[in-house]
């Protein structure tokens, strides 16, 4: 690659260093960013594209990223991508039923991979039914395991707001899971 750039008179050092940095950043954080995009309601293919866009943006703004804040920066950009995606492609995930069909969810008695996939479908259905502000705090805390301070930085909201939203989000999530469990229990008794 270096020789290729040199043959075109590029500043090899600068370009190669930038490429190296962003490659490392992508290798380190791609999974996290992609997962956040998925939990925010994007399909796998859309998450692929949006994650790519996140890292293209990061490559452009590399000098602005504070060391140690890479993940927070990437999440911020990712959430902007989610907003862009919602505006341009509609809110498809919101059309999903809030209460997934537990009987078909196959959480029990299936092989591990299929069970995981179906569990994610149930999870996404629950998340899709949650208000967006609660959902993002919940995902960042429970799935991405960020601290409240980090979430506050990513979402640019006060830590107190993060705490209250997280409390409400957990209650909301637990209530939805309880309803699913109750339905499951009822269906078992009916058989």
């Amino acid at each position: 690659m270096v020789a290729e750039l040199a043959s075109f008179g590029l500043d090899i050092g600068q370009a190669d260093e930038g490429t190296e940095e962003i490659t490392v950043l992508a290798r380190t954080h791609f999974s996290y960013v992609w997962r956040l995009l998925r939990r925010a309601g994007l399909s796998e293919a859309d998450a692929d594209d949006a994650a790519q866009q996140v890292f293209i943006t990061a490559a452009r703004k590399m000098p602005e990223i504070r060391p140690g804040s890479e993940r927070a920066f990437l999440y911020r950009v990712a959430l902007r991508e989610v907003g862009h995606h919602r505006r341009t492609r509609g809110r498809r995930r919101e059309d999903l039923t809030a209460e997934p069909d537990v009987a078909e969810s196959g959480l029990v008695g299936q092989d591990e991979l299929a069970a995981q996939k179906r569990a994610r479908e149930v999870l996404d259905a629950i998340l899709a039914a949650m208000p967006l502000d609660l959902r993002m705090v919940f995902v960042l805390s429970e799935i991405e395991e960020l601290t409240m301070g980090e979430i506050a930085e990513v979402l640019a909201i006060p830590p107190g707001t993060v705490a209250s939203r997280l409390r409400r989000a957990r209650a909301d999530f637990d209530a939805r899971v309880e309803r699913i469990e109750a339905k499951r229990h009822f269906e078992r008794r009916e058989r």
Partner: protein
Amino acid sequence: MKGRHQAPHVRSELGSALIMAGRAERPKAAALARTIAAVGVGAAVAGSAGSAAASTAVASNAGAALLAKVGAKSTLLLVVAKWTGIGVLGGVVTLTASTELSKPRAPVVDTAVVEVATSKDAPVRRRGPPPSAEVPSPETIDESVDEPTTRVEPLPGAVKSTPRARWEDEGTQNSLESSMPEPRPAPPALNPQPVEPVAPPASEIALVDRAWRIIQGGEYSLGLAVLASYEREFPSPSLYPEVLFMRMQAAQRLGDAKGAEAVARHIVSAFPKSAQAVRAGALLAKSQGAYRSSK
């Protein structure tokens, strides 16, 4: 990452299972590879963007070379192929292209003209069509083959790869096409001229649209790199006036007035009746007026 500060939260077994399933999801390795390829191009182009005068040709060449190097050409195509439901620009370029296609086709213009004009100091690399460009592409082979004895089979390398599962149905389509009977050659008396495609392929429109969006977003060097990859991907581009117009705009916004003028002159001479020629002519008139007033 710092330690967590939230109070421990007791959750049901199902709730915990759902959360764990969410945490366990991972992207496909190909997605990461495509992203690395794409950001590699972006970083290299960004690194070269400092020199406005030279960046037009240099960034285009470097971007294209890197694309070829890492196989990101297909990456970009894959990304933009999803935008086949493109809106206004797609419609506009299709209409314009249809208008252009109804007229006699101008020969493929050697982009070295643009490169020389935009970067006198940069080493000029003439980007002639690759050897495989002599062979009709799989998409046009049915229309362009006149003699059955000279029929050219699609080269394996010329078939676009479809790494993403979403395009599996396209692969099926390809295999179906290859298993179909050989196309019947058109009688020369009835069809003396090779049939021009009615409209450019969706992937071509999508790539041009991608470049347009990037340029409109202010990433001129990256946009030029995408255009360069477009020219490599489509040696006989149907949307060449649009591509030249975007090159003109990008050069203009990069502050490369001479490069923009050179491209504008090229548009006016090669595509005098195109919609782009009007804008190009306006740019030339403006620059000539500025030149006269400065004297």
